[in-house]
């Protein structure tokens, strides 16, 4: 019997399919009050006056506070990743006190008996502002005399983070036969988890205890941070992530509203709820991406890469949130991708602007890196007259070369780029599509065909705590699990990961069922509540399976080891003579002498007959701190048709072959890939947070920010290559971000490939019809 590798249907589904859900906004409590946030309508202004008195007079309004009113109860929101020693770390009050620094910065809150009354009362709050100049352009922001986002800091430059490895790039460039330089723009994206954020805080006022329900990916980290920000002692805080409707990094955050709601509930001694509306979330929930990439590549005429130089200007937004400065650092080691080279230079500069802060969004740094290297590889192939797949072949790490330490200093433990690519090319029918493309080009067809390729890798499984220390990340990278055998033989797995759609309950059940030899149905998984699952580092960065799943595996293994002692005693045999198969201990050579692990659980519960010195439990916990990252990879191929008259792109076919190592549940893996692809394609073709010259978010509602719906996306062909990871006992690599990381360059590469015969060399994302039309017009001029 093996659960692992089986497409088990999800345990999570039943309540989600029948509406028996527990979204944070569903949570009610006696006397619950509703909090609404008044936000700055301006990108940058001094606050001259906030007057909440008229709001307070409205019927049903219980309280109203300005930033100054709440300031004594609220510290600065935390940044847990100060990437350099001399990073500029501005104060970040959860509600602005003196100055607003982005459109959407909170300035006041009202608390009322229901959400309608609270919304109305916001209109009665009076605020006077003196406008200050917005800071929007990343390059202009660094110029001498530029207006400052944080005037007390004297600069908009947040940090410089350099990395130089291998030979000196300048020397390599000198002797290279070919060098190419490109500038790429990673537009700002709005994560758009389907569930808007919400917070409910229920206090026990008499004892200063609080339960915080939040739509968060990180209940454990949130608990620590809220204790710091609000000075509610950590042991009196319980944080619960109930059903969470997607995150994609946007709920890997410690938000002002979480601290504010807690502080207000504490002041009022009553339960308080805040729920964002979608358009409010577009301003208040962090954005992703947002950087300018200057990329230079050096190679020989035969296509052999020599070196890579990358300079990044990264839009931090107005404040540093939980891991804002670290996002490009997560990508820093990935720019060389799967390719061998002798020199690598990277410079990252973080820049403050008067826009919503940026932070993690699915892939977090790695999509940006993959985009840059894969796009410039396409350009190099054109320059050298090579097929883009062939150029990649000439440079990638061959499968017999693993483990391989890259120029960026990472050691890729495993992989087989040849196998994934060969499979993808066959599924895609590459040669046939190339022939059709040539035919269309020759005929001068108004609809052109383009092919894009992405041979990506990524680093997953955050992460070895020591590496995180070296990167100046404030927390560790371990993950916790415990496995409890209940008296009736049923099993509770407690995990420190905090799922929000990924299917941990199902997959962790599969892992535990296999190790313990119990039925899948007999396993329950407990998560997302700091009281029930007290230890954890939560869910982000494709870490849950690699680190958290491993912890489950190890904890379950410990349970078996403890049960073995009891079994040996009961069976009057030595441990060495016991076999354990499918949940049954038996004595070698006497098959009738057997006890199931579930029976052992009951024996342990009664403790009537345990060996001397043995604790009356077989429960066990484990904290996993991996030695290294894991490195999923794959080859994605995309064919697009571009209507050269309207500029519209249609994806005709998309093939993804991913190597995510050993697979726990192939159905769930496929689903993760599909969703990842959709988001990567969305960056390539549809989505962009657009600001006007005053710093207002113009794409401020779902009607303006184009999240693709079903007709906008193709039917994907997905397959897998299988090279188990060697850095964890499960052999798993992580899959949550692969599709997003891989697909964006494949799609943009395809669009550019379609238009190259017409003179187009590059396109900015998203490749909107108008941008395509404009590029064609300029090319023909």
């Amino acid at each position, binding site marked *: 019997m093996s659960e692992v590798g089986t497409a088990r249907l999800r345990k999570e589904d039943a309540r989600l399919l029948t509406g028996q859900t527990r979204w944070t906004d569903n949570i009610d409590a006696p006397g619950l009050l509703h909090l609404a946030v008044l936000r700055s309508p301006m990108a940058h202004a001094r606050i001259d006056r906030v007057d909440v008195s008229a709001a307070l007079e409205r019927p049903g309004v219980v309280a109203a506070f300005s930033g100054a009113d709440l300031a004594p109860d609220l510290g600065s929101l935390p940044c847990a990743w100060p990437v350099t020693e001399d990073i500029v770390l501005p104060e970040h009050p959860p509600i602005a006190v003196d100055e607003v620094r982005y459109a959407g910065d909170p300035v006041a809150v009202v608390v009322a008996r229901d959400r309608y009354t609270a919304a109305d009362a916001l209109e009665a709050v009076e605020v006077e502002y003196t406008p200050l100049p917005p800071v929007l352009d990343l390059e202009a922001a660094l110029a001498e005399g530029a207006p400052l986002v944080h005037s007390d800091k004297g600069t908009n430059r947040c940090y410089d983070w350099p990395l130089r490895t291998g030979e000196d790039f300048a020397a390599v460039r000198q002797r290279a036969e070919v060098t190419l330089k490109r500038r790429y723009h990673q537009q700002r994206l709005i994560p758009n988890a389907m569930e808007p954020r919400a917070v409910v805080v229920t206090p026990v006022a008499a004892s200063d205890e609080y339960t915080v329900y939040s739509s968060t990916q990180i209940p454990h980290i949130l608990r620590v941070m809220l204790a710091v920000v609000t000075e509610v002692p950590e042991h009196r805080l319980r944080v619960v992530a109930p059903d969470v409707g997607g995150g994609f990094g946007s709920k890997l955050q410690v938000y002002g509203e979480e601290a504010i709601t807690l502080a207000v509930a504490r002041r009022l001694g009553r339960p308080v709820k805040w729920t964002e509306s979608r358009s409010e979330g577009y301003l208040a929930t962090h954005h992703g991406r947002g950087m300018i990439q200057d990329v230079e590549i050096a190679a020989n005429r035969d296509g052999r890469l020599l070196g890579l130089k990358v300079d990044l200007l990264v839009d931090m937004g107005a404040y540093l949130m939980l891991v804002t400065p670290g996002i490009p650092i997560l990508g820093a080691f990935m720019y060389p991708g799967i390719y061998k080279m002798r020199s690598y230079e990277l410079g990252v500069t973080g820049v403050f602007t008067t826009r919503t802060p940026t932070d993690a969004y699915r892939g977090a740094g790695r999509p940006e890196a993959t985009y840059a290297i894969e796009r410039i590889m396409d350009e190099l192939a054109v320059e050298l007259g090579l097929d883009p797949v062939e150029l990649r072949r000439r440079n990638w790490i061959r499968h017999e070369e693993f483990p391989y330490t890259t120029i960026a200093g990472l050691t890729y433990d495993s992989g087989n780029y040849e196998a994934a690519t060969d499979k993808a090319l066959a599924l895609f029918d590459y040669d046939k599509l190339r022939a059709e493309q040539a035919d269309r080009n020759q005929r001068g067809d108004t609809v052109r065909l383009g092919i894009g390729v992405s041979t990506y890798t990524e680093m997953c499984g955050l992460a070895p705590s020591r590496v995180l220390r070296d990167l100046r990340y404030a927390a560790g990278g371990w993950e916790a699990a415990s496995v409890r055998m209940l008296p009736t033989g049923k099993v509770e797995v407690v995990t420190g990961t905090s799922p929000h759609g990924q299917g941990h309950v199902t997959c962790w059940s599969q892992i535990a069922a296999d190790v313990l030899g119990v039925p899948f149905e007999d396993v329950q998984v407990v998560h997302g509540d700091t009281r029930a699952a007290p230890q954890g580092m939560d869910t982000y960065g494709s870490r849950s399976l690699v680190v958290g799943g491993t912890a489950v595996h190890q904890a379950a293994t410990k349970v078996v080891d403890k049960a073995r002692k009891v079994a040996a005693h009961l069976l009057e045999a030595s441990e060495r003579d016991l076999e354990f198969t499918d949940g049954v201990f038996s004595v070698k050579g006497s098959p009738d002498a057997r006890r199931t692990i579930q029976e052992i659980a009951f024996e342990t519960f009664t403790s009537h007959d345990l060996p001397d010195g043995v604790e009356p439990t077989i429960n066990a916990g484990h904290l996993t701190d991996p030695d290294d990252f894991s490195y999923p990879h794959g080859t994605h191929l995309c064919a697009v048709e571009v209507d050269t008259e*309207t500029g519209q792109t249609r994806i005709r076919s998309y093939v993804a072959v991913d190597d995510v190592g050993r697979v726990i549940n192939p159905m769930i893996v496929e689903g993760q890939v599909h969703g990842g692809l959709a988001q990567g394609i969305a960056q390539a073709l*549809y989505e962009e947070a657009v600001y006007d010259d005053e710093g207002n978010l113009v794409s401020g*509602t779902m009607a303006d920010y*184009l999240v693709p719906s079903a007709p906008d996306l193709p039917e994907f062909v997905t397959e897998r290559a299988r090279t188990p990871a060697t850095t964890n006992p499960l052999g798993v690599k992580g899959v949550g971000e692969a599709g997003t990381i891989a697909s964006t360059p494949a799609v943009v590469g395809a669009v550019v490939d379609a238009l190259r015969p017409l003179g187009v060399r590059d396109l900015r994302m998203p490749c909107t*019809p*108008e941008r395509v039309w*404009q590029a064609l017009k300029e090319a023909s001029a």
Partner: protein
Amino acid sequence: MIPPSFEYARPGSVEETVRVLSEGGEDAKVLAGGQSLLPLLRLRLAFPELVVDVGRVPGLAGVREEGTTLVVGAMTTHHDVVRDPLVRRHAGLLAAATAGVGDPAVRHRGTLGGSLAHADPAGDLPAVVLALDAELIAAGPGGRRAIPAREFFVDYLQSALEPDELLVEIRIPKTDGWGFHYEKFHRSAQSWAVVGVAALVRRDDGHIAEARIGLTNMGSTPLRATATEEALPGSGDTRAVARAAESAATGTRPPRDLSGSPEYREHLARVLTRRAVLAAAGTG
């Protein structure tokens, strides 16, 4: 987000509606299917003091024939318009264009009259009734009056309806025997038309005898591509149609927004007009 407070009236007849609207004056707003009004209220972009729900007024929904005219009740939902056999037979352009309005749930609630009275030049249906040379019938304190589609759309989100008038029906000259096509160009399935072209073509002996072309989102109101309409008669092949379509943007003043610049829209109008006419003529 949450709508602001308003008074609510649910009249039981057209006459009562008109009376309530008269009393409400400029601050009253008619609620038909609500698919345009409710998002505006929720974003607090509109603050009516009185919302007059005409959802229960009898006789406003449904389709009937009157000789050479097809009469569509203002409260006929998009869903019903798309499926109505009379509309499909006599005003196929309207059925075809309505099938692409919003999404199925929006089409269940949204009404033809509601989307015309909203007078959004980015909406698909204003350009369609303009191309159909429809008449819009308004009921007011002084009785009913017919407003030609050409005069109905006054400006951005502004119709010729007086505050105390209710749009009750849309009278469409039957277009039996005409070819038709609505060419909608949008960036994603959900998004509004960057440009749309509603084309009606009558053919005679292999040539285009007459064409009527409505343009969506090419100005502050829906527009007719007059120059192209004049150039098309006599066109017998693709090249002639393409030539005529070159003047599709003449006289338009398209907006600039997130989905397109005026220049791009002008370009699209030419391309889409060619495609729409060819499709309507059955040669596309």
